[in-house]
């Protein structure tokens, strides 16, 4: 019996060494998923915008604005990713984080990652429709811009929760 516990003791694994792994996983995921969503979104809107410009090159400025709207999720992803990297000490500083903290960072990144990816795609759909709207009624540009911006609200809310989590985890005593 005694032998077994000593054996276990000797092979025991330092679980806290995994903390940084999960934390980085979070940072990478958020940049990845936000970027994927925005890339898909801006790609979709770009196709629609190019179609409009073939008919009327004068609308370039307007459709460009609409094309770029789903691009912000990628930026938010980068933002959360970067803040996480600085917080967990990968960009300078010590990278010693407990397993619990690492998992917390991962969890903190998830809202932005998931909502960012999905909202970018749906925002792109709204944007594509708005591009069609501007193609037919260029004077309605102000309203056309608002429909995609509505979708973005939820990406902003996710960003908010992610950033509040990430910046407060460092001060926790776990």
């Amino acid at each position, binding site marked *: 019996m005694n032998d077994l516990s000593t054996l276990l003791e000797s092979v025991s694994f330092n679980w806290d060494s995994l903390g940084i792994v999960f934390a980085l996983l979070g940072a990478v995921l958020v940049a990845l998923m936000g970027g994927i969503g925005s890339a898909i979104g801006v790609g979709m809107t770009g196709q629609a915008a190019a179609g409009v410009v073939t008919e009327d090159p004068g609308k370039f400025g307007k459709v460009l604005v609409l094309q770029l709207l789903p691009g912000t999720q990628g930026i938010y992803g980068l933002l959360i990713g970067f*803040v996480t990297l600085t917080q967990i000490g990968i960009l300078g500083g010590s990278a010693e984080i407990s397993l619990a903290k690492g998992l917390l960072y991962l969890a903190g990144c998830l809202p932005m990652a998931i909502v960012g990816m999905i909202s970018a795609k749906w925002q792109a759909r709204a944007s594509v429709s708005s591009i069609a709207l501007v193609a037919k009624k260029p004077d309605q540009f102000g309203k056309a811009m608002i429909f995609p911006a509505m979708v973005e609200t939820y990406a902003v809310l996710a960003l908010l929760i992610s950033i509040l989590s990430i910046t407060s985890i460092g001060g926790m005593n776990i």
Partner: protein
Amino acid sequence: MAVLEMKRISIYALKKNRKAILELLQRRGAVEIATPETAQEVFTRTDTAAARQTFEKNAKTLTDAVAVLDSIAPPEKGLPTMLLGREPITGEQYRQTVDSAGKTARLAGRILALGKRIDDGKAEAQRCSALLDSLTPWLGLDVSMRSIGTEKTSVFIGSFPEMLTEGQLKERLAAALPQVPAVEAEIISASTSQTCVFVVCHAKYGMPVESALRAMGFSYPASPPRLPPAERAKELETQREQALADAEAARQEIASLADRRREMLFAADYYTMRAEKYRVLGELWQSPHTFQLTGYIPAEDAPALEKELEENFAAFVEIETPGPDEEVPVKLKNHLLSAPVEGVVEGYSLPGRYEADPAPVMCLFYYVLFGLMLSDAAYGLLMVLGCGIILAKFKNIEESLKKNLRMFLFCGISTTFWGVLFGSYFGDAIPVIAQTFFHKEITIPALWFVPLNDPMRLLLFSFLLGIIHLFTGLGMQAYLLIRRRKFADALYDVVFWYFLVGGLILLLLSTEMFRSMMSLTFTLPGWVGTAAAVFAGIGAVGIVLTAGRESKNPGKRLLKGLYGLYNVSGYLSDILSYSRLLALGLATGVIATVFNKLGSMLGGGVGGAIFFAVVFLIGHGLNLAINVLGAYVHTNRLQYVEFFGKFYEGGGRKFNPFAAHTKYFKFTEEK
């Protein structure tokens, strides 16, 4: 300041002054023509459609001619016309344009004809080249391709769809026609897909030879020329050169007209103006010796125009206040700060009948919100400099562009202000440069605080700004209702909401839990919480009782009232929506930081400095562009959805005066 008061103007004058009066109105550009559909019997309308079409056609000919001219002799690439604006011309220049307009239009017609000649010449040259190409395989033939033989011989000129040598051809002929002696075949040219041959035989074997040849795949050339191929080729070559020369001559003639470009554009404008004048003319009600014109005019312009018309043209002018049911066009007039955001208001919708112009109230919020979202002092300065330089240097740019530039100038000032408060200059560029290249620790302290270090504080501040913004919107609603003397509605729809939302916020602030959650340090005395609860209660009860006041049925009314109370969730989401101020503000700073970090990766030294400069320029250029766009879109959203949602509907029709809608010149007023 706000929506200009509109008056109805009616002008009655003698027909002999018609032209002069219309021209004056067009130059002043102050009256929107709106003639009634019917008039007394003595008045009739003239059909001016034919004349108008002629003018429009002339204008189109002129602009088309300029397009042709530009494709041949492109105008010098200078600054974009957007910056230069329309060229001001004097009365003398205008009279010249008018006098020579007919001639200029004919010149334009000539240019179009020349342009057509160039196209035709090129097409002709193309056709000749194609014919020459098809003739090339036959060039070795020295008789006409149409030869069919002499009295005693039969000649077959044609081709096989394969590669053949003379030996092969003769072998096949001999095999097919063993009974026919002396068939002479000559290969003119051979390629993998076609062999051109000349076959001659005695006339009496003509028929069998032809059928044998056909069986082998022989075919006659399509439309062979009368002349022998070589001569025909020479003829085609001459034709081609002639066509090209003709096109070139036309091109040179057009190029020699390059200096008439401006004249033609002016003439195009002149015809557009005349077309517009004739449109109005067609709407006038005229009697044999008089005519009448009605329309709308901003009240401030009315007296001057009235005086001018009555003194110079013996016209009778009547200025009236429009009736309450008339759909009066809307024109906004604002002061220096609020005029630039008129475009934003217009992007939503112009004020409707009972509404006020929101621009004066929203302009400050617009600048503050925009600045908070971009919040970098250096970016703000760049915007101020960029817009300021363009505004100072190009005085002649169009009014709408000028307004936009001014708007971004003010947004830039606000951005600089917030940037200084948050200590952000190109993100953290200054400390990074000092650290990387000079190994010194320099930090520019934030005047207020660094958002990334304390996001909660900025979030709360964003909510506070949001609450002020929303309450201002509600206040506008109250103002509009009171202006229409609907005091009860103002109480029900505004004051109760102030009580409810304001009370709930105060109540929330007085709870210990919320304060610790938001790490607020102050404490509110206990009575504040109680008072807040009382006010919120009054508001809630008031809303439940009054929100459904349109329904007579008490049950329905109560349900509608409860549904009205449910709108409080709308206020919650509206306030939360202002968290984008924090999100976008942080985004600018963090991305700037990322680029600074990226740039400093190669460390100090010359190489590092060059790398840093490149990354800095590209990175910050990109960041500025993307974040200005983001700030613009989201400021508009906050104005349109959260702010306008509280009081503004719009639906006004834009004032569209009868004026000189020219594209290339504008009048300088001579007084």
